[in-house]
């Protein structure tokens, strides 16, 4: 690949201030089983290159799935024409300094390579998961899936950048739906497609797999006869698998600098956060410490460099509750005058990089789960997201979970079904009263974070301990 790209860069005869080529080769597999029967088996490969050209302060791009030299040259010419046609109307005079020279490599860690399990072995394992989930005749649907991705990226530029990154990841999911008449309940392994990690098949074949599968099936049945979540204001305790969604929607998205600059207002939305808030705004309680950290081994959105070549580093986004910096690329940092992170990312070769969160984690505090629950006279403990909605400024949200327990006098008591909660982002994060310790810190991820025009679904990772929030509105389902 290097020879094609360096040859292309060397032969391009375009009067541009900067030229970059980002080639991506992605091989992925999907295996999905429902009720013990195969539903979907296959592999997808995509390969192509995006050429970006800086002309008179304006970036233009062209993406092609043909990597032949003439195709790359034609794409460069098209990118040049795109930039030229728009150069009277640029939103910001971009400079080559927003694409600094960088040379390096990154590879995901893994133990068992993706070719160590055959398609047949994966299917039979998923069939067994479905069979184990069906703990009762009232289980009316069981599903299990395993997806893998091997993504290689090569980035070269006219100012000497040469970056190679190889991401290997495994996403697994299983769950059950239980039904008794009109009552229907779902339960899954930490929420929909939440088990997303960089690594190999060791991520699936863990010792706790079969007891956990059994537990998921049993909890689906348990929910059929559970009490409805009460409608009240109370202490809310969130498990890490729900904190993932909470961090993603109410911290990650509002801190994206391109949203604050208005790029996303027509689609994903803007933000309640203003440029002047950085360095000043008390985003949440002093217990709140959030890091942008693409360096965590095995976390789903780890990398060495973003898609413009910026070097990825761990940074505090919120420290002791105070907003420190935004989730913005070198381009956004220049436009907004705000400190950011290495987060210009594209979903593939056919989409331009935009500001995306990567791994965004709530740092652990000191409390054990026993201490947190033990200190609550009345509250609700919730696990595993099943419903999410938040406004375009990322201010008002409502989330629902699969499974909950009532907390009475320092103990988890009755199981609750249809647990939901709603609040506004500042009110909620200021109500954070306890943060769990490293023992209960867990990380999850999703491959389906949507944003951008044209649309891009990208992979993110989130880690968090168990957390306690005071005086939150919780409620059940029905009508």
């Amino acid at each position: 690949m290097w020879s094609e790209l360096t040859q292309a860069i060397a032969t391009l005869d375009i009067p541009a201030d900067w030229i970059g080529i980002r080639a991506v080769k992605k091989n992925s597999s999907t295996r999905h089983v429902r009720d013990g029967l195969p539903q979907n088996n296959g592999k997808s490969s995509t390969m192509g290159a995006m050429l970006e050209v800086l002309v008179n302060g304006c970036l233009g791009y062209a993406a092609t799935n043909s990597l032949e030299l003439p195709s790359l040259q034609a794409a460069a010419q098209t990118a040049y024409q795109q930039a030229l046609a728009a150069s009277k109307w640029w939103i910001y005079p971009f400079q080559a300094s927003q694409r600094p020279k960088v040379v390096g490599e990154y590879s995901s860690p893994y133990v068992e390579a993706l070719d160590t399990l055959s398609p047949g072995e994966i299917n039979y394992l998923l069939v067994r998961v479905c069979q184990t989930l069906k703990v009762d005749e009232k289980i009316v649907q069981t599903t299990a899936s395993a997806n893998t991705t091997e993504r290689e990226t090569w980035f070269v530029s006219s100012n000497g950048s040469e970056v190679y990154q190889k991401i290997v990841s495994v996403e697994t999911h299983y769950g059950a739906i239980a039904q008794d008449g009109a009552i229907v309940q779902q339960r899954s392994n930490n929420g929909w497609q939440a088990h997303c990690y960089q690594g190999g098949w060791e991520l699936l074949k863990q010792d706790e797999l079969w007891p956990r599968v059994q537990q998921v099936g049993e909890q689906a049945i348990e929910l059929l006869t559970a009490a409805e979540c009460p409608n009240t204001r109370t202490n809310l305790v969130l498990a890490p698998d729900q904190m993932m969604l909470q961090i993603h929607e109410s911290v990650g998205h509002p801190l994206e600098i391109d949203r604050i600059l208005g790029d996303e207002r027509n689609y994903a939305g803007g933000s309640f956060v203003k440029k002047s808030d950085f360095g000043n705004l008390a985003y949440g309680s002093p217990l709140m410490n959030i890091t942008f950290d693409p360096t965590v081994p095995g976390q789903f959105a780890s990398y060495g460099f973003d898609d413009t070549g910026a070097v990825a580093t761990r940074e505090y986004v919120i420290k002791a509750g105070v907003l420190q910096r935004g989730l913005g690329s070198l381009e956004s940092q220049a436009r907004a005058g705000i400190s950011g992170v290495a987060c210009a990312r594209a979903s593939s070769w056919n989409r331009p990089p935009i500001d995306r969160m990567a791994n965004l984690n709530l740092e652990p505090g000191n409390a054990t789960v026993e201490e947190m629950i033990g200190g609550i006279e009345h509250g609700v403990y919730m696990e595993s997201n099943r419903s999410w909605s938040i406004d375009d400024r990322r201010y008002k949200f409502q989330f629902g979970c699969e499974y909950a327990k009532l907390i009475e006098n320092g103990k988890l008591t009755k199981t609750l079904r249809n647990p939901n909660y709603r609040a506004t982002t500042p009110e909620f994060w200021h109500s954070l009263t306890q943060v769990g310790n490293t023992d209960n810190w867990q990380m999850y991820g999703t491959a389906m974070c949507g944003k951008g025009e044209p649309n891009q679904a990208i992979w993110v990772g989130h880690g968090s301990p168990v957390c306690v929030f005071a005086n939150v509105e919780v409620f059940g389902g029905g009508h």
Partner: protein
Amino acid sequence: MKLAELSTLETSFNQLIETLLIKKKETEQFTVRLTSEESQFTRFNHAKVRQTGLVADGSIELTLMEDERSSFRSFPFTGNWDKDWQTAYTALLELREEITFLPVDPYLVLPSGNNTSREINSGQLLAAESVVPTLLELVAELDFTGMYAGGVVIKAYGDSQGQKHWFATDIFTLDYSLFDNCGQAVKGIFAGNNWDETAYIAKINQAKTQLQLLSRPAKQLTRGQYRTYFAPAAVADLLGMLSWSAVSEADLQQGNSALAMLSRQEKQLSPKFSLKENFEQGFVPRFNQLGEMVAPELPLIAQGILVNTLVNSRTAKEYGKTANGANSSETLRAPEVSPGNLEFEQILGSLDTGLYVSNLHYLNWSDRPTGRITGMTRYACFWVENGEIVAPIENLRFDESLYRFWGENLVEFTNFQEFIPEVGTYESRQLGGSLVPGMLVNDFTYTL
């Protein structure tokens, strides 16, 4: 994409099918699906260009079936025959090896029938170098944001039974918003096969008028239930939820449908609510992933009664139903909600006092078995008193069951419909859209 390039792609696609037919074993069956596009994407913010580029992409999905087993390979399709065939043949050999080891799939559906179709919708789109000046000169003084996407989109299908479909359309969408200084906004979508300068000017002028209404101080409401008029774009958003575990027969059978209570006749919808799939307008291909052609019209909900669900051939085989040409995910492709009797001029008067909701945002099931949907109001939404718009509103969260707003609380649909085009571009540009009226609803529940 130039006509010559289009022709080359079609020739290459046909050659691929013919060569696979030669290479396949007697016991094998296959389907081939093509998705291809050449798209100009220009993104705007503050009436300036944020990003601009052109994406040329194409991919083939080859599915091989044998001995009650199947698997697929998806790979790039460039139109370069030598390269594409080499990739396809490698995929075929891999699939042959793989499917032997997969479990038996008793509900596997093999391609059948003899459907063929060829449809090319040529258009007159803006030249690449004209997109930016044509769009921006008119809105230079406004806070204009959004995206223009234009170019050829191709969907094609072929299989081992000889079925073959080719659908190519030259189409653009301009999805935009105009903001005022207070952050209030008007939303617009402009789409078609031919760029119409006059229509674009009219749309922007109409949006400017709406923008003026937003300049008044926003009214803050308390939580509660309000009589509400939903403009067609908002109705389209609510309708979209039916594609997410509602009208699918498989979802009904597997305990996962929001319409289960309607299906069991434990709940009713209003006799004023009728929904059908209507492919007459030709915005999307009528063939599905097995090359099956759907009927031009398929009623789903007739006067509040669930008369059909979307049933694909796989679901039909598994549950003993009759297939009706649904796609693999049994989602709506060309939905139409029937109009009612509310005239445009009567909307505000009939609403009297309540909310005028232009658009919605971020919908999700809050309790799927009871049909409860949550989401937010967005863009130009107003408080109306005595039939007159008084003020824009702060965005509100709603949480309400479809059994109420399309059931006992549905007052009336408008006597006109609007086509709300699909503007999604995940993976590739989406086609189609919804044909929907506006609707007036009593006691819609707002929570925050």
